[in-house]
């Protein structure tokens, strides 16, 4: 019987034949914690009184509240720094960027890897063919103390995408569309394999956007195969040898879904769930107070470039605040070299520290009661940005940038 990418990665790691449904304990290739989850993991780790720590496979990232907005957070950041120093763990401090940008960018993750991160969007690295999934702090502690973790090997849903995306319609629109169809719990406990000529046509930056949001359908991870584009990207980033993994032609899938996206409209996820997705035509004209471009979904160089092209030589609407957080320092620097940052700032944008920025409501732009925010993030839950009386809409960087000019949700195909 053929195997899915997931079954192959687990079989390779367990050194035996493993299939969907099996409960396994598997060795990990990489382990990540961020400032919202690592402090609790450090506590659990210490409580476990282990003899070992998988130092060389661990990275801590201070990105969720970076720089610290108050003394409580500062104490947690210090706890992370001290623990990392003592145990020789790689620490990415404030300003380095969002964890899910950093791990692939710094070469910690390569195809065929089995990776866990104490953050739900760890599924992002599926775009470069790694089985990566989000866990909680205690799982992180167990992983640090043993270098392995228990898993139930998931079944896989295959999503085949065909057709080229139309003008000013992007990967973000595509994944929002899929979430709207499959719904928030449509892929719970499952892995997804994204395939088809649409995926091949996308840049690696855009592929990350898609895998990043697999969790918004409940999926454990969102895998893609390695192609020439991936190889080229890896040549610049990978720091270890790798073996990419393809599914067998006779692999068994739980479901196969096919979509033709050649007529797709820009999509908008409306308050307060990510699967409440509408084509932009239905929400065009909705007035907004704040726009945000950034996050592990859409804070990459490609995204900033798209926004800068739209905002060049123009001014953000006087009643809109535009906040931009590059996903990493490297992206920030490249965006400066290309003149993107100047363009954005001249248009009226506020650039904040590379990191999560206002995505999770810790600081850097918490909306007021009743305000509407249009964001490139991956979640629009009530209270997500720090105020449960605000309304969050999600869209692509193009839709957000164009809407920032108009003061209301606007259709980027009209540029």
């Amino acid at each position, binding site marked *: 019987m053929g195997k899915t990418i997931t079954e192959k990665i687990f079989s390779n790691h367990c050194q035996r034949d493993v299939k969907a449904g099996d409960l396994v304990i598997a060795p990990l290739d990489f382990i990540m914690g961020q400032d*919202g*989850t690592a*402090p609790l993991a450090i506590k659990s780790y210490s409580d476990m009184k*282990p003899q070992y720590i998988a130092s060389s496979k661990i990275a801590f990232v201070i990105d969720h509240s970076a720089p610290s907005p108050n003394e409580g*957070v500062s104490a947690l950041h210090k706890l992370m720094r001290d623990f990392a120093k003592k145990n020789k763990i790689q620490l990415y401090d404030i300003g380095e960027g969002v964890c899910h940008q950093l791990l692939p960018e710094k070469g910690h993750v390569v195809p065929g890897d089995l990776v866990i991160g104490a953050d739900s969007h760890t599924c992002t690295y599926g775009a470069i063919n790694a089985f990566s999934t989000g866990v909680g702090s205690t799982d992180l502690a*167990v992983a640090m103390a043993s270098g392995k973790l228990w898993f139930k090997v998931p079944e896989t849903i295959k999503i085949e995408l065909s057709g080229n995306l139309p003008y000013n319609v992007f990967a973000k629109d595509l994944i929002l569309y899929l979430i709207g169809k499959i719904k928030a719990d449509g892929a*719970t406990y499952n892995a997804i394999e994204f395939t088809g000529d649409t995926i091949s046509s996308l840049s690696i930056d855009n592929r990350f956007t898609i895998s990043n949001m697999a969790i918004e359908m409940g999926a454990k991870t969102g895998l893609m195969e390695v192609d020439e584009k991936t190889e080229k990207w890896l040549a610049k980033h990978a720091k270890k040898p790798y073996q990419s993994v393809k599914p067998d032609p006779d692999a068994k899938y739980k479901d196969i879904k096919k979509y033709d996206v050649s007529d797709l409209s820009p999509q908008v996820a409306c308050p307060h769930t990510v699967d409440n997705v509408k084509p932009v035509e239905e929400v065009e004209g909705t007035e907004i107070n704040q726009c945000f471009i950034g996050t592990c979904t859409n804070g990459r160089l490609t995204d900033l470039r798209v926004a800068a092209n739209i905002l060049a030589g123009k001014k953000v609407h006087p009643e809109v605040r535009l906040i931009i957080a590059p996903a990493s320092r490297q992206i920030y620097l490249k965006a400066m070299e290309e003149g993107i940052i100047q363009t954005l700032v001249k248009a009226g944008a506020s650039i904040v520290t590379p990191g999560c920025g206002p995505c999770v409501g810790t600081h850097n732009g918490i909306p007021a009661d009743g305000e509407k925010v249009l964001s490139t993030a991956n979640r629009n839950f009530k*209270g*997500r940005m720090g105020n449960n009386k605000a309304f969050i809409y999600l869209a692509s960087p193009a839709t957000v940038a164009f809407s920032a000019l108009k003061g209301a949700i606007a259709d980027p195909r009209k540029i």
Partner: protein
Amino acid sequence: MLLRGKAHKFGDDINTDYIISGKYKFKTLDMNELAKHVMEDLDPHFYSKITPGDILEAGKNFGCGSSREQAPLAIKFSKISCVLASSFARIFYRNAINTGLPVIECDTTGIESGDELKIELEKGVVINITKNETIIAQPLPSFMIKILNDGGVVKHFQRYSDLKFNV
């Protein structure tokens, strides 16, 4: 493990931001303090309504959203003994087992707030004493029961210095 308490009913897709708002999770590691804010955005007085041992009950996709372990911990420290839902988001499910909070996937449609429930965890049986009904759920794999009985994966690890499936 035998659990008993009255039910508190919530709806579908209860995400981790509702269980414990992100604005608290970054502030403290004191779980008793976090527990006071459990489900606050959905019911500002929820914490004061809990009698130790009570059972939280919900529809589909309970615990979706972030990986914050503060979500099951806030529930556990609020003295809720178990969560029943027609389905769980998987990270929440893992985190609940790991932190020693019993969770059962079963048909919750017939259970109402205030119903007195009795749960036999090993067998996966939920008895609604008020309505005189028995709900049969999928029992948890023995490995998970083991972790729950050990009081969570940290205590499990303390005991065996490793993850052990067959003990």
